[in-house]
């Protein structure tokens, strides 16, 4: 698997560590218990495109946001973790 780091370019997946599902908005502090329950435990867990956090931990150490296909492992788009993803190339 090759992952495109916005700063370093395409690198082997072994240089990165996984930060999990990036599609879940964090509820407000005073949100209902059910919202917090869903946020902490439940997942869409799609078979196909999935938004996720990765860290280039053996590279520039930046956090990134990817859209990656969970069936083909193809990386569809990548960008800095703090920004919404574009449509990719």
């Amino acid at each position, binding site marked *: 698997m090759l992952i495109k780091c916005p700063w370093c370019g395409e690198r*082997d997946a072994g240089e990165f*560590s996984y930060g999990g599902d990036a599609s879940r908005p964090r509820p407000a502090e005073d949100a209902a218990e059910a919202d917090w329950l869903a946020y902490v*435990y439940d997942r*869409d867990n799609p078979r196909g495109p999935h938004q996720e956090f990765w860290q280039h931990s053996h590279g520039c150490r930046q956090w990134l946001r990817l859209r990656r296909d*969970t069936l083909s492992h193809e990386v569809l788009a990548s960008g800095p973790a703090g920004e919404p993803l574009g449509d990719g190339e």
Partner: protein
Amino acid sequence: MRYSLASLLRRGLARNVGWTPAWRDAAPRAAYDVIVVGGGGHGLATAYYLARNHDVGKVAVLERGWIGSGNTGRNTTIVRSNYLLDANARFYEHGMKLWEGLSRELNFNVMFSQRGVINLAHSKPQMDGFARRGNAMRLNGIDAELLDREAVREKVPELDFSEAARFPIHGGLLQPRGGTARHDAVVWGYARAADRLGVDIIQDCEVTGFQMQGERVVGVHTSRGDIAAGRVGLAVAGHTGQVAALAGLRLPIESHLLQACVSEPLKPLVDTVVTFGAGHFYLSQSDRGGLVFGGDLDGYNSYAQRGNLGMIEHVVAAGVSMMPCLSRTRLLRHWAGVMDMSMDGSPIIGASPLDGLYLNCGWCYGGFKATPASGWVFAHTLAEGAPHALNQAFTLDRFAEGRCLDEKGAGPVPGAH
């Protein structure tokens, strides 16, 4: 046909003609009292115990591909009940007892081999942890022995006992009744036994949606037409998230990939199951001589059923560290399965938020050993509409009620055993 020494001799002497298929390749009917989705070990065991222990009418197992093509046919077959938490210990120990009589029960040799499972400890705190878990096991009536360094050396002399070892072996925790079984035989044995009790096993039949009546599931849409059902049970392992999404459910599960490997066949080397305590690696030797081993998840969401070489390198490095002679062994094959990783590392067995739909999932790294117990309690749950005493702790609402079964004590992460 009942299998016996006499039937083996008779057919053998008659040049093996006249064996009949072990189960019927059934076509779907319009309606069943209970439909079990997924023809892995769990789905088939559920159907078998439904027919054996309960009076529920007509039962079908729907399998998308062929039976046993999922994780059951890909796993490394370790069977154990060496758990710390009471709910897990009792459930898996019930399974262990069923394993002990399974070949006879099914009239099919599942090759259950109680060769023992040894967890290695590489530090004093780890030995303390093992003593605690061993004591908890014994309080639950499960066999456990704490081994010191010399006792481990006696059992598995090939481990790294050198002075230079990076992870010196302090001892280990042994469950003598643990071991391995033959995965395909478990599938075939349950399928054949269920079929003989009238269960329809329907292959090439993918569930593509649910028939709803208000909030109640009343049947399934499949690639072979619509089928009505009194109750529907999901036993689709790594595909649970997807199939549940067809009913609009979101679950505390992520699908991840786990790889395993087998080496070229060797002469007898290890006669037990050994797990490394300083990294993630475990090993046993098959009857054919291949060393069967594996380690951690690749570590990211995946449905691919194939992994990256990086993880294989990591697993092999841990293996060589544990048993240096492995460095001279050639790898024959490696493969992967889609794991249903629950958020506390324990399974989910029980009602779903929808009437008529029941869940059996969250098996993480270790659902093969659970096959008989899982089938037993899921059959009960489907027949009674309420959990068995042994799966009361495993219901989905435990997450909302704050009674997670977190054996590892790691919080909500989809990566525990």
